């Protein structure tokens, strides 16, 4: 029989016992809804975690450090692969920064500048860490949802505060926007060389940064205007020392020439004539382009780190979570398929004579089998679509409930349930497949009916 006729007859048969078939289909819908709700929770949580990580701007970033390391001086870094140990280590200075910036698919290279300061506000001291933020931080999502605005320029005398720090400064953090604070920091100033001149060529293009014969540390102050408050922690915790709680434009941070931890390493190394960077952050155009760029930087003699391995593990974790949620969600669908088996077996009993007539008129065993398969498939399709809609509504309900709860805790709303198109379509296909499996036994039993006995059946 042609597929069009098969479908038409299947739908006609299902319509004839509309109540029973509707209830069976509803059972499938509930099963599918349960599966969708479970999986949407897994997918939503994964998306939420990914977004939070992505907002840190780390996924398309490679962190580059010199293989000179104060701790591991004189021996290769533990993270250096054997194949690269033959490449001599290089200082991570301005020339290296320029060289890395020339690599294909690199969109931005900037140093990590973090330094200890004392913030003075309302004549009170608040020791904390300051970090320089590149312009790209504005667009990569790291400052999404912030109060106030991003820096007006790459060298603007402005600061953005982390919310927890802002709370230390004022019980009403939002009132800080537009007010000034004083940044007290230790400026590095190069000492003259033996010939009485400071060394030329520096990382930031200023003779203040030249290593020369050493450097002196001079206290300095800088008045900054608070322009925003951010609730997330951009690049929080990455870089090896402490979280930054005050953010200033990167170009401004470079001109401040504040003393950093790696300055001490430069003095200890003694071999470098110019100031080196503690680390560089390399932004790549796309996360998929991270591996080749990372390999190229390693071949230049630096150690690198990216979050690719971390994300792989994250994906594995959520795959396992999805699998477990899927198994629990499928249980209801399995029960629903028993309903399909029951309905179709009942249909065989009721339509025994009809099956006999079909066979007498030329129906093959395969036609009968396909007819029952089609009926099971239609129930799976309708139940699948209805179930996805129901599951989507449940997800929306969970999101709504979560948002209400979070808003009471003064936390921003999040979507912990998500039903992407692939999930909706995949579950519908799965529901059809499971329904067809459920139709296997009844279809086979119907096809095996002896036509003579079936025609005799009253």
């Amino acid at each position, binding site marked *: 029989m042609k597929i069009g006729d098969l479908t038409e007859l299947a739908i006609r048969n299902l319509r004839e016992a509309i109540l029973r078939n509707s209830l069976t289909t509803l059972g499938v819908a509930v099963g599918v809804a349960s599966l969708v709700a479970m999986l949407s929770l897994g997918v939503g949580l994964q998306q939420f975690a990914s977004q939070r990580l992505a907002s840190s701007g780390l996924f398309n970033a490679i962190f580059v450090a010199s293989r000179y390391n104060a701790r591991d001086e004189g021996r290769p870094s533990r993270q250096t692969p054997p194949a690269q140990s033959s490449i001599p280590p290089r200082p991570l200075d301005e020339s290296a920064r320029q060289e890395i910036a020339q690599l294909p698919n690199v969109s931005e290279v900037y140093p990590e500048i973090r330094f200890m300061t004392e913030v003075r506000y309302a004549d009170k001291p608040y020791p904390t860490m300051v970090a320089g933020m590149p312009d790209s931080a504005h667009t990569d999502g790291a400052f999404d949802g912030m109060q106030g605005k991003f820096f007006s320029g790459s060298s603007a005398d402005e600061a953005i505060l982390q919310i927890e720090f802002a709370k230390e400064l004022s019980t009403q953090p939002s009132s800080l926007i537009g007010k000034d604070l004083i940044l007290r920091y230790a400026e590095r100033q190069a000492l003259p060389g033996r010939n009485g001149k400071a060394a030329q060529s520096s990382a930031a293009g200023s003779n203040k940064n030249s290593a020369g014969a050493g450097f002196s540390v001079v206290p300095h102050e800088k008045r900054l205007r608070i322009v925003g408050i951010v609730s997330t922690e951009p690049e929080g915790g990455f870089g090896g020392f402490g979280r930054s709680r005050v953010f200033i434009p990167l170009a401004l941070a470079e001109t401040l020439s504040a003393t950093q931890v790696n300055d001490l390493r430069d003095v200890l190394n003694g071999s470098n004539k110019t100031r080196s960077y503690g680390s560089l952050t390399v932004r790549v155009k796309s996360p998929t382009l991270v591996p080749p760029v990372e390999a190229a930087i390693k071949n230049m003699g630096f150690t690198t780190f990216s979050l690719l391995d971390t994300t792989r593990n994250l994906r594995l974790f959520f795959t396992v979570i999805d699998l477990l949620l899927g198994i629990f969600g499928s249980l209801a669908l399995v029960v629903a398929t028993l309903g399909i088996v029951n309905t179709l077996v009942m249909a065989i009993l009721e339509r025994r004579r009809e099956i006999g007539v*079909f066979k007498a008129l*030329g129906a*093959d*065993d395969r036609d009968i089998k396909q007819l029952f398969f089609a009926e099971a498939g239609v129930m799976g399709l309708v139940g699948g679509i209805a179930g996805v809609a129901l599951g989507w509504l449940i997800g929306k309900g969970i999101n709504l409930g979560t948002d209400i709860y979070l808003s009471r805790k003064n936390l921003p709303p999040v979507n912990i349930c998500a039903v992407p198109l692939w999930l909706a379509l995949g579950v519908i296909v799965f529901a059809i497949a499971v329904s067809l499996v459920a139709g296997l036994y009844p279809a086979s039993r119907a096809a095996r009916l002896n036509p003579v006995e079936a025609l005799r059946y009253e």
Partner: protein
Amino acid sequence: MPARIKKLGASPARSTIEGLGMSSGDNGFAIHADNVSRHYQMGAALIRAIDDVSLQVRPGEFLALLGSSGSGKSTLLNLLAGLDRPTSGAIIVRGRNLAEMDTHELARYRSLTVGMVFQAFNLLPRMTLEENVELPLRLAEVERADRASRVREALEHVHLEKRLAHRPSELSGGEQQRAALARALVNRPTILLADEPTGNLDSATGEEIMLLLKNFNQSMGMTIVMVTHEHPLAERFADRIATVADGKLISVTAKSSSGAHS
């Protein structure tokens, strides 16, 4: 199936028929049944529903299978229809032995070569007349565009073309049987098998159906095998009468002669 035939012991005559293979083994007959048996095992008892029956039906012939209830005539008809398989023996139609066909081939045979009408009409109550008559066309995978005209044509043959949209429950018994006849005709089979077609009808309506059958037989040259227990009906309309009793063919009588020959 051939293995089962051998197990029960094939007669020399059957061997000859099997030897005819796929060619014109019917010797010009529309149906050639040779030493056909259909036995059932019920517990320890062996029921011989049909026992060693040989029968030939000529093309365009109207044959009545006459017998009392339980004589085996319907069983024989089911064997000729390919709804059942003989325990032994051969049924040759168009050079093919039904006993050797697989289920798919038998389905094609039932779809295209034979049409069937039943005592209980067996129209599907949920379908309209048009849909009932269209069903064999669906099963034969006839193009949708051709179906409507063929359904109408079949219903015109039985004068029901104005009842297309009616359901069987809205028709009289005679009309239902006429609709069943239209359904049997719609695939243009060469053989019509009728199992007590007037059994559920009053005599006037029964006669109407018999006249239709006779008309198909004469105007279309259709071979008809009709099961009946009404001797006068068989005597009046059939060309020959084959009488079945206790699963055996006891006589085949030509309408014009009074003697029996097998």
